[in-house]
């Protein structure tokens, strides 16, 4: 993650994030046994509050590491990103804070994207690799306007039903501490390398809690950098991960059907996706009414 994490942290830095100050938030990075450890220099170069902890040896699943990170968090609102390769849009944190004020028990997420013209599971077939991604980012000027990332990204599979359809998981999940306490974090029985569907399980359980309101940050997102992770490189098939899910939960996975509250500003770079998402939603509605 030596290539991806510096960009990720840059996207979470006070200079990039809009609408809040450095003292308003802290970032906690749990290095889950990366062969090339996250360097102290990277931590020092971060403008805001950043804590780094390294697990070594580390379990193959990120569940324990995520729970450790959650236990360290001192904020009232706590966000979780399971993968250090996800760039954030410039308003992700400020909008999450705003969304936290809109409901008594909010479960907040933002749509997930993959950088590039295809999802990263299909990157090899499309000739998309880290070098292509580096060029794409270098030409974009995302550091000055992170919303331009929408222009070069593809909606992730978990959001394949569009912005107005149910998502399979959250790649950036924000909850208040009482909700995290109720969830108990990620289920550490998910022991597959990469965690399998542990993040899907977390999202489903969060959405199923009593009295929660799902808030989707329309206009914000996370953007996955191509790095050959466990899921996007298909280390395990969906069937293997789903079998693990069923073994752990006793049920088949279905995405939560909560009706979200949508919050955020829609920029021009998102309009095409909004149109397509609306069409998908209309088609689904028409199919239901048949």
């Amino acid at each position, binding site marked *: *993650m*030596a290539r991806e994490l510096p960009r*990720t942290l840059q996207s979470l830095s006070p200079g990039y994030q809009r609408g809040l100050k450095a003292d*308003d*938030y*802290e*970032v*906690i990075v*749990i*290095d*889950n046994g*990366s062969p*090339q450890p*996250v360097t102290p220099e990277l931590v020092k170069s971060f403008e805001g*509050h950043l804590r780094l902890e390294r697990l070594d040896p*580390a379990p193959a699943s*990120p569940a324990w590491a995520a729970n450790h*990170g*959650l236990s360290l968090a001192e*904020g*009232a*609102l*706590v*966000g979780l*990103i399971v*993968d250090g*390769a996800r760039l954030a849009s410039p308003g992700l*944190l400020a909008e999450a*804070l705003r969304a936290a*004020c*809109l409901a*008594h*028990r909010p479960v907040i997420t933002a749509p*997930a994207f993959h950088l590039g013209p295809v*999802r990263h*599971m299909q990157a090899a077939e499309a000739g998309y690799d880290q070098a292509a991604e580096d060029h794409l980012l270098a030409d974009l000027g995302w550091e000055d306007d992170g919303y331009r990332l929408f222009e070069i990204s593809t909606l*992730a*599979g*978990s959001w*394949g*039903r569009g912005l107005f*359809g149910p*998502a*399979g*998981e959250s790649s950036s999940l*924000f909850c*208040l501490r009482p*909700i995290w306490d109720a969830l108990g974090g990620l289920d550490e029985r998910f022991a597959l390398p*990469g965690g*399998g569907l542990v993040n899907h399980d977390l999202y489903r359980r969060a959405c199923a809690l009593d*009295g929660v*309101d799902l808030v989707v940050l329309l206009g914000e997102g996370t953007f996955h950098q191509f790095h*050959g*992770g466990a*899921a996007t490189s298909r*280390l395990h098939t*969906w*069937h293997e991960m789903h079998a693990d899910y069923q073994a752990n939960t006793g049920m088949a996975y279905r995405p939560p059907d909560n009706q979200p509250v949508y919050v955020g500003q829609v920029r021009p770079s998102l309009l095409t996706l909004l149109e397509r998402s609306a069409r998908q939603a209309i088609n*689904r509605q028409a*199919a239901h009414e048949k």
Partner: protein
Amino acid sequence: MTADARYHRRSDWEDAVGRRNLLALAIVAMVAMAACGDDDGDTAGGGESGGGALATVQTAPPLEPVVSELVTTYNDTSDGDVELAVAPQDQAVEAVSQGIPAILPSAWLEGVDADGLVIGRILESDAATEVFSEHGYLP
């Protein structure tokens, strides 16, 4: 309590303010095994599936364009999440013999013991029929 009422109640958020920071963000970073999910069996063509695959449909390269369109159309017009897996003929046929749903020429499946398979889900879709008709697979 109605949703509207909830929005006007004092929130857990307001109860919790007072901690050192307003917001904390925990990130798990790892190179090869990061759960960079977004998977959801999302190989269906056009990037329209997601949300947890209902089924994986196997096919072979010659049929991929039409089956991909079919899967995309199905996912767009239903609650189903179907993923498409494309494999060489021998692997696709082998998958069928293990009970994986597939869209393949029937001639390829002559050696498969269909009676021993559990094929219990029929995905109904008018749009799918239209797709196949447009490509000449149905009268």
